[in-house]
């Protein structure tokens, strides 16, 4: 289907040279190897990769959210000089669909379009501009269909089916205690809504596929899970796993948005077809169409409590808009159900969580994974109930807080430290920021900042609290494991530990943590963490707050296995019992006595161990949503202090304070960074960040129109980090990445309600809701004024 005039090029690209670091042990704040290069611009992101002879790939996407394809005509595109390949669904060598859990998504669409931006054809050319022109020459005959853009509508019996299986992709039902068949003194109801948040990672999707000249391919890729990419590539390329090798390249953030495939299969198809390296890099607009987003949700809640403030029952119904394809929606739906009532003890609950196919952009994993949505709802309800009971919101929460031994709505007993009440009390006890004085204030401290709209007149302060939780690691019986290979050797410069895993460093600091663990376990200063690739077994995904627990745990176990073999050697050579031995500063010691140096022990005989680490077994939920589905829970609480210009609707978040139990902080500075980052992302969701979709079309696919918080929007974060060891976890650690993202939005909205007295049932909260001007989203099409989304085509107009 194309002209191929290339000569095969042997794979010449090698990953970055593994560097040797000298980190401290666990518990020390360690600098990350990528920190300085990222600030100075020297870090090699996936989009910076290059090989001689590289072709540029580009993707033709559907402008329609719902359509039939009657024909695809590519000959004109193929005829353009410099175009090496134009491929369609006909050229997919193996399985024509992909998906992590349910392979329902076409690699390239053939007869039906289910979302705007769905890929239809791919091109490889000698220049990005040539590739772009070729896309323009591909003729598609579409029959445009009405989009099914509302999740509730899609659930109706008579709705057109977007997939053969029907539109309800998953329904999780939990009945706990007597469900709702009980009476309560005080009842509150609420309906809540959450918009579609984007992961907004700064490094867009990118990768470089290099054919090996023997029918196989090497892919250098920014991803979250090399092996799940490999599994899907193997299927769709029709190759054996040995012929599809992946190496992690520089990842510019992920937050769940890189768990699904984007350009991986496309780049490999083009590389194998042209026998040339092919690079694909999305631009920002394409990135908005190129990955899944956080599920928008509508949530209907009813809470009942006794007059003295004990929860009696919770009824919750959540509908998540899954968009066009499955992605990880079934699991998100289950999370939204399991964490629907929050970290509280409640004897009765009836929970129904649905995720539905629509013609909206596909949604999937994003930091918080279902718990973010329901936390906004249950915390809003807890405030409402506290108000109805005349109780202090924190006191009310503490009174109902889950503790060790509490029962989840799933029937699972909560084990280990469960400091829900303590986190709330600690965050409440933190000193408050200074009250706004009467004198003139620095504009930067006011809502609207230096835009001069507020001078402090009529500014009202509000304070709000929230607590949230989520599981760590994969749940519901998933075989969750991580693999680590550790090699101990001596070189001219002394002992060296090499750590090799496939775990994706996506910016969270995992490389440093692996090195710290190796140092701690083997007493060796020089550590080399090798580039992550598929030459070692799967590490599982860098998601679900699991990678330090799972891969960190695997590295720990591999080090222990190496140590065991080393001590066996000591026993054989010196007759020393392994029980009395330890490793310190490159030597084996017994108490204060040095037994042997590693230099002597290892001379020429390296020790290597590969270990698979599995966490405790979990189980699927039964028909009533009962089962020990979770491995570990992570908790955090937030307090938000806001100043609100109630007349304009402008907000200044004055301070965010948080308390979180991390079990053990392996790299305290990195823990603080994760908590700050997650809190900032939560602030974005509460106030600014939403992909605005109408009739299945994205209206704001740019960072001009999709509003990310800037440094000026983000206040200082006060942190209280608890280290309550989980006896089951490596070093007692607890996953940390997601909780800050979960409890921040409801705390901010609670503070806004406190300041304004308004209901604010939807996030992100818009200024017009705060000002009480309009609670409906805009009614008409975008017009002139403001961001790029509104400019339209101005080719005929005059401007300089």
């Amino acid at each position, binding site marked *: 289907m194309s002209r191929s005039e290339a000569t095969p090029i042997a794979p010449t690209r090698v990953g970055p040279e593994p560097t040797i670091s000298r980190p401290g042990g666990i518990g020390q704040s360690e600098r990350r190897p990528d920190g300085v290069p990222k600030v100075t611009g020297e870090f090699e992101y996936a989009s910076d990769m290059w090989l001689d002879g590289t072709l540029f790939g580009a993707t033709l996407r559907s402008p329609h959210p719902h359509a039939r394809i009657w024909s695809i005509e590519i000959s004109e595109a193929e005829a353009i000089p410099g175009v090496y390949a134009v491929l369609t669904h006909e050229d997919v060598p193996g399985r024509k669909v992909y998906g992590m859990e349910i392979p329902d998504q076409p690699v390239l669409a053939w007869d039906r379009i289910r979302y705007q931006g769905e890929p239809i054809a791919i091109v490889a050319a000698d220049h*990005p*501009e040539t590739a772009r022109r070729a896309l323009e020459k591909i003729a598609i005959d579409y029959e445009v269909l009405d989009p099914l853009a509302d999740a509730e509508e899609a659930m109706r019996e008579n709705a057109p089916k977007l997939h053969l299986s029907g539109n309800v992709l998953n329904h999780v039902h939990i009945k706990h205690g007597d469900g709702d068949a009980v009476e309560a003194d005080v009842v509150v109801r609420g309906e809540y809504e959450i918009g579609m948040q984007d992961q907004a990672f700064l490094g867009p999707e990118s990768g470089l596929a290099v054919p090996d000249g023997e029918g196989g391919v090497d892919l250098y890729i920014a991803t979250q899970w090399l092996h799940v990419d490999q599994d899907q590539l193997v299927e769709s390329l029709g190759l054996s796993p040995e012929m599809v090798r992946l190496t992690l390249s520089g990842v510019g953030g992920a937050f769940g948005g890189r768990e699904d495939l984007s350009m991986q299969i496309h780049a490999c198809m083009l590389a194998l077809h042209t026998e040339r390296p092919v690079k694909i890099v999305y*631009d*920002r*607009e394409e990135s908005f169409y190129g990955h899944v987003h956080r599920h928008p949700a509508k949530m209907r809640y009813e809470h009942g409590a006794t007059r003295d403030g004990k929860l009696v029952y919770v009824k919750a119904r959540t509908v998540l808009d899954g968009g066009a394809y499955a992605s990880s929606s079934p699991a998100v739906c289950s999370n939204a159900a399991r964490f629907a009532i929050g970290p509280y003890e409640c004897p009765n609950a009836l929970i129904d969580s649905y995720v539905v196919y629509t013609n909206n952009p596909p949604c999937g994993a994003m930091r918080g994974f279902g718990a973010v949505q329901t936390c906004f709802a249950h915390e809003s309800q807890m405030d409402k109930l506290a108000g109805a009971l005349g109780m202090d919101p924190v006191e009310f929460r503490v009174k109902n807080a889950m503790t060790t031994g509490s029962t989840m709505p799933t029937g699972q007993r909560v084990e280990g430290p469960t400091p829900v009440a303590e986190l709330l009390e600690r965050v409440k006890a933190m000193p408050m920021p200074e009250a706004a004085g009467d004198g003139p204030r620095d504009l930067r401290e006011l809502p*609207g*900042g*230096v*835009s*001069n*709209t507020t*001078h402090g007149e009529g500014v009202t302060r509000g304070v709000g609290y929230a607590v949230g939780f989520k599981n760590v690691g994969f749940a519901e019986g998933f075989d969750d494991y991580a693999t680590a290979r550790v090699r101990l050797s001596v070189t001219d410069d002394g002992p060296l530990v090499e750590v090799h895993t496939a775990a994706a460093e996506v910016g969270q600091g995992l490389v440093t943590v692996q090195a710290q663990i190796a140092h701690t376990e083997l007493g060796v200063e020089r550590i080399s963490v090798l580039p992550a690739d598929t030459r070692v077994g799967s590490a599982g995904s860098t998601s679900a707050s699991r990678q330090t627990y799972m891969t960190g745990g695997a590295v720990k176990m591999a080090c222990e296995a190496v140590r065991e073999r080393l001590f066996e050697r000591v026993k054989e050579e010196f007759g020393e019992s392994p029980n009395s031995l330890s490793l310190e500063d490159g030597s084996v010691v017994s108490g204060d006595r040095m037994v042997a140096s590693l230099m002597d022990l290892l001379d020429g005989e390296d020790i290597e161990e590969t270990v698979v680490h599995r966490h405790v077994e979990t189980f699927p939920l039964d028909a009533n949503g009962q089962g020990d589905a979770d491995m570990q829970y992570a908790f955090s609480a937030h307090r938000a202090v806001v100043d609100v210009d109630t*007349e*304009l*609707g*402008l907000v200044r978040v004055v301070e965010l304070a948080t308390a979180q139990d991390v079990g053990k902080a392996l790299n305290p500075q990195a823990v603080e960074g994760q908590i700050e980052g997650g809190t900032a992302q939560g602030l974005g969701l509460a106030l*600014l960040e939403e992909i*605005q979709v109408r009739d299945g079309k994205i*209206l*704001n696919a740019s960072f*001009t*129109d999709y*509003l990310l*918080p*800037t440094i*000026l*929007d983000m206040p200082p974060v006060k942190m209280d980090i608890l280290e309550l060891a989980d006896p089951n976890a490596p070093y007692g650690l607890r996953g940390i990445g997601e909780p800050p993202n979960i409890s921040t939005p409801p705390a901010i909205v609670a503070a806004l309600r406190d300041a304004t007295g308004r209901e604010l049932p939807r996030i992100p909260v818009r*200024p*017009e809701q705060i*000002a009480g*001007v*309009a609670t*409906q989203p*805009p*009614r*008409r*099409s*975008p*017009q*002139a*004024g*403001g*961001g*790029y*989304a*509104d*400019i*339209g*085509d*101005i*080719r*005929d*107009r*005059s*401007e*300089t």
Partner: protein
Amino acid sequence: MIPVAFDYEVAESVDHALELLGQHGDEAKLLAGGHSLLPIMKLRLAAPALLVDLGRITDLNYVRDEGDHLAIGAMTRHTDVERNPIVQEHCGLLSYTASLVGDSQVRHRGTIGGSLAHADAASDLPSALMALDASFVVKGSSGERSVAVGDFFKDYLMSDLAEDEILTEVRVPKLSAGTGWSYQKFTRRLMDWAVVGVAAVVEKSNGSVGTARIGLTNMGSTPLRATAAESALSGADPGSVAEASNSADEGTSPSSDIAASDEYRRHLARVLTKRAVEEALSR
């Protein structure tokens, strides 16, 4: 984010630029800083065949005291307008508004003439110049003409400039001693375009409003004067400013878009007008 290929010419003088415009007609666009033009070219919303760069015409970079008004060359950068002592002394509103344009990079490269000729109703300078009653000098092959600010903005991204004309100078009347001013810009994040902006120039009379001129940003397809509010404000004492400002949105037709609904824009115009006049009275 790569624009369509284009040719590039450096204009040595205004006459040279006019000559190039004459040769290339509507294929050519003037580059006067490029902070509006280049982004939309990268987004391929505009695809001129030729860019005529005015950046080297130093003759167009000046601020002059012309007695009753200031003359500002079209290629004067925002940051130079902001920091110019003559502008600060005689026309504080313009200096201040220039400090709110875009971000620091934009203010160092973008020019007053470029911003005005782009004629974006969401830009800050046009409405400030409406309130200041400015006028513009426009040069074409057939000579020079003066255009009042109220006649310059025709529609969304459309000015009174013909294809073979160049905006060369902005003339701003000096503010008298008893005149207060304010610019209020509503954004959800700093550095964004104004959702709504209000510029006020108030001639004070014994602590009350004598006359007021109110310019509105992003309340329609062009910058506007809030004429109904201006009438209502005439002679208003501080206690009645709020009520008088309630007509600030009269006669406007703001859009509903992803940034705000039209109702909310109207609300903002009213509140910001009140605040702008109050600040102008106190200044």
